């Protein structure tokens, strides 16, 4: 039963990759937006590529992995394809997992770009054994957050995008992306603890030059707990709201 549902999640994921990877809102909010955001805050601050790279990687993964999944539910509500999925022999948790997997892969693929930029600029990722599992866990975490953002029963992708932007932007500013956590005032640091992005940025800083703020174990544990909470909440809320969408 579990394996069967896992295979179905992969089927849903393949469908999402075919349909949603190249949709305009995904490209705009997942790729162009973070690039411009990064340029707006990074350029002109007299920082080296080495200082900017952790933020660049964190923004790339955060925005891309949380870009696709909030669009899928409203899109499929509008096109009535959600009804097809729900009438098939798969669990709602499987549909959500499939959507999250597609977003997870998209995030990982796009994150390779800043990593290559870093390598070309002569900055290597020294602790790959931390970086790779960190990217995988964070991508799942951010994708689950994306799924959570799409739970209100709307059939308008723009509405979900609005919710998603309202949540994503503040997180970027409190997560030590543009300013290392150690340099943020105490009150700001308190806010940063509630952002999963903080722990991923910290892991990336450790992977590149070991300038981390939290112990690596805490970063992994926090990302794991956030992932679990986001996924379970997303499934519960989708289970409650999908009948209202149809």
């Amino acid at each position, binding site marked *: 039963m579990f394996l069967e549902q896992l295979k179905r999640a992969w089927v849903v994921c393949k469908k999402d990759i075919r349909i949603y990877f190249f949709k305009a809102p995904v490209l705009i909010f997942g790729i162009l937006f973070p690039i411009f955001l990064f340029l707006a805050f990074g350029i002109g601050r007299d920082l080296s590529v080495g200082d900017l790279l952790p933020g660049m990687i964190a923004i790339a993964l955060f925005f891309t992995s949380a870009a696709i999944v909030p669009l899928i539910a409203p899109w499929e509500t509008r096109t*009535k394809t959600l009804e097809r999925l729900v009438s098939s022999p798969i669990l709602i948790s499987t549909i959500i997992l499939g959507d999250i997997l597609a977003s997870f892969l998209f995030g990982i693929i796009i994150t390779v770009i800043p990593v290559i930029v870093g390598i070309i600029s002569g900055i290597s990722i020294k602790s790959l054994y931390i970086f790779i599992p960190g990217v995988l866990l964070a991508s799942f975490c951010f994708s689950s957050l994306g799924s959570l953002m799409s739970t209100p029963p709307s059939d308008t992708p723009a509405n979900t995008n609005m919710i998603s932007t309202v949540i994503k932007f503040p997180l970027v500013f409190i997560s030590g992306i543009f300013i290392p956590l150690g340099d943020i005032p105490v009150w700001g640091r308190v806010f940063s603890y509630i952002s999963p992005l903080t722990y991923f940025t910290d892991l990336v800083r450790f992977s590149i030059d070991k300038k981390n703020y939290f112990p690596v174990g805490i970063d992994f544990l926090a990302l794991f707990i956030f992932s679990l909470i986001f996924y379970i909440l997303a499934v519960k809320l989708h289970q409650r709201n999908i009948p209202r969408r149809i």
Partner: protein
Amino acid sequence: MINAIKVEQLTKKFGNINAVDNISFEVKKGEFFGFLGPNGAGKTTTIRILTGIINATSGKVSIMNHDIGRHKLEAKKLMGVIPEVSNAYMDLSGWINMMFQGELYGLHRKELYALSKELLIDFDLYSRKDQKVKFYSKGMKQRLIICMALLNRPEILFLDEPTSGLDVSSTFMIREKIRNINSGGTTIFLTTHNMEEASQMCERIVIINKGRIAAVNSPENLKLTVKKLQSIIVAFDRDMDKKSVYSLPGVKDVEKVGDKMRIFTEIPGELVFHLVDFARENDLKILTLNTLTPSLEDVFLKLTKEGNG
């Protein structure tokens, strides 16, 4: 014989509104079953509960002896669902849609390829299989979702207005295919607004109104239950005042219809003899004499009006 569908005291509430109100019925295995009702009667809600899309507030639904509330996945594997509006993925080709649907039901690749090809050829879509569905006509989209619904070789096929808005040739083709599917032993659960379609295709019909069942019977028996809607159409060689035929035994009502009269009666057989005598006594020639049984549409209107009254 086991029932394909068994519905017991099914109720669905949305807030304080009873969309489906304590309904019970059974559909036999292999039966062609019609589910009729005016807009807002509870048809779509019922079909969504039967197909496991939404949960009932109370009551029980069994699909081939699987309780849909407790064994949803097992029940869903046995059914195919064809909604009113095509819900294939428009950005994918017809072929990829078929692959996606087959994989959702766990079909093996070899079987899936062979069955997809067979169905698409049968429904005259194979030559367009690699084209995105958004470029298909409405009839083609409808045929594609029927193909998709047949991939898992369902024991029960749910069809929600399958020919709504289609041209005559697509409608004819789809009806023919559905009949053939039913001949192969698949139970058909059809909702439609088209009374002619229901009358021609269904073995039994449920009429639902305001969430409650107004009638369950075969189309012909339903027509017979509404005796006072039986009538005789008669035309004489001279124009006759309709009051003149009111006095005949068994006449309930008379309507002028062009140069003819439609006489409503519960005893059409006897009234024919009285009309012949009437013509003879008044030196009239009978130009036309037809008995009319009520159409399913008449029955539907009567039952749903009674429910509203």
